[in-house]
């Protein structure tokens, strides 16, 4: 029988711990497929964060380092400076990147470290049980904003892609989503581009991926996709925020 579809070689055979309906699995696959299609799996080195994707090193079939909370861009800096010819990326959630790790990600971008960052924004702390994140939407309920996020008390959610577009060091910044097949295809294109920027030596590239958390949002997987589309995208518009110069 002819094989018409195979799992990417970029992922291991370890069963993931992600909750049903969580879109981390899709994003892992997109990253792994891109690395395989670009033929860079043998020279890829990933850095996983603290958060739901802390165990990403088990799911990718490449060298990996697991970082302290928020410091993945610093760890990736150390790796990339030692191995400038390797493909180095961080995979970080919104708590890791947009809260505890803002200094490290801003300065990695500021130095235009030649790395790629996949920023998974699901507007909540997943692993610790649904606490408010810097990206939690106004009115969105979480275990630490039980009546809904009050911007007067907790501020408005942080728009990372918009902010990073203003940093001189960023070469490529794009926000994508994975709530339907079309958006998934676009997400993959952006992820590929972000890695192409690195291979071309153009500097810091980041893709923000809007993602779901059915467990902590208290919604079914399907309703979560709808919620993302109806609530997150209006506040976090999809699209390209920075393209320094086109790379092939």
């Amino acid at each position, binding site marked *: 029988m002819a094989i018409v579809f195979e799992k990417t070689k970029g992922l*291991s055979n370890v069963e993931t711990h992600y909750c049903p309906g969580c879109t981390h699995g899709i994003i892992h696959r997109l990253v792994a497929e891109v690395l395989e299609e670009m033929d860079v*799996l*043998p*020279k*890829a*080195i990933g*850095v996983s964060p603290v958060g739901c994707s*802390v*165990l990403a*090193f*088990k799911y*990718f*079939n*490449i*060298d*990996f*380092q*697991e*970082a*302290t909370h928020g*410091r993945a861009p*610093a*760890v*990736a*800096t*150390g*790796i*990339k*400076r*030692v*191995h400038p010819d*390797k*493909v180095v990326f961080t995979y970080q959630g919104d708590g890791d990147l947009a809260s505890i790790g803002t*200094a*490290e990600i*801003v*300065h990695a971008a*500021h130095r235009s470290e030649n790395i790629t960052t996949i920023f998974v924004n699901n507007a909540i702390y997943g692993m610790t049980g649904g606490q408010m994140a810097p990206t939690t939407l106004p009115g969105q309920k979480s275990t630490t904003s039980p009546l809904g996020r009050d911007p007067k008390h907790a501020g408005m959610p942080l728009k990372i892609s918009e902010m990073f577009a203003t940093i001189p060091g960023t070469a490529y910044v794009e926000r994508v989503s994975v709530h339907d097949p079309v958006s998934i295809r676009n997400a993959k294109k952006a992820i590929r581009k972000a890695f192409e920027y690195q291979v071309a030596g153009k500097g810091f590239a980041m893709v923000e991926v809007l993602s779901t958390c059915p467990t902590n949002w208290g919604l079914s997987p399907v309703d979560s996709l709808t919620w993302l589309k109806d609530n997150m995208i209006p506040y976090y518009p999809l699209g390209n925020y920075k393209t320094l110069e086109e790379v092939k």
Partner: protein
Amino acid sequence: MEKVLMKGNEAIGAAAIKAGCRYFFGYPITPQNEVPEYMAKELPKHGGVFLQAESEVAAINMVYGAAGAGARVMTSSSSPGLALKQEGLTYIAACELPCLVVNVVRGGPGLGGIQPAQSDYYQATRGGGNGDYKLIVLAPASLQELTDMVQEAFDLADYYRNPVMVLADGMIGQMMEPVAFGEIPQWTLPEKNWATTGTDGDRAPNVINSLFLAPEELEALNIRLQAKYQTIKANETRCEIYQLEDAEIVFTAYGTTARIVKNAIKILKAEGIKAGLIRPMTLWPFPEAAYQALPKTVKCILSVEMSCGQMVDDVRLAVESKVPVAFYGRSGGMIPTVDDIVAEAKQLLGR
């Protein structure tokens, strides 16, 4: 061998480059700024990378990344900066990553001051990070020893896959002395086949990680680490024993303080009081055995420190109450004088 007059902080940089260190990540803090400044100037000439990080926290995590990627790498800082690096250090120890961390110690607590101190002994030997881990802690008392220790630190780190700290009080960092960069013994080192260099398609992925959710796995890591620490203790404990024979009083001190104590010993000797010194050169592992083999003439031990009394705890543990242990110290950047030490010794001996 040709000697060069150097400032301690510059000698640290020169020794590290000589030892093959090619990556330095750090953040400015007094009194160690000449280390990053030297590295910024010299590392690029040797094909290395100097990077000024956005913070001490970032710097130690860059060290983690570079060490995990197989490089000879170091950072340096001073006391409050080391406080910030503690989280990174426990991860580095847990992942068994070799690297050198230099602390040019200044007075504390808090922001403290910028004058020499030894008040980070606890921080260095107990660890400010979480969990059961140990750094190998080297304590030089001269710039020559500093130079030798920095060079050997990289071999020690690679051999045992363990972070090594050189604990130099601010005096060691700031003073100038002639140093010779001799050939230090080269260790036979294991290959870094665990490093994340990319699989090149010909091996299973390497992973640098300290997360073990299954308690059995985490305990197994701890058992393995403790066994390694026992080996280090057996092989690498170092100290200087000075004029211990027939001593009535034994001083114990490390770093700059030990040099002041040696002058006090001379004065006491001239007055007919026999005094000796135990100078730990490794603070972890602590040279416990030296304190258990004291001559019968010893009436008391006096720990002299530029702190409010930290190493004295380890001395008491090592002595096991067999001899009274007293403490004399100055802190905040104040340095014990020879006269102070002589007076303290005489008072203890009732002379």
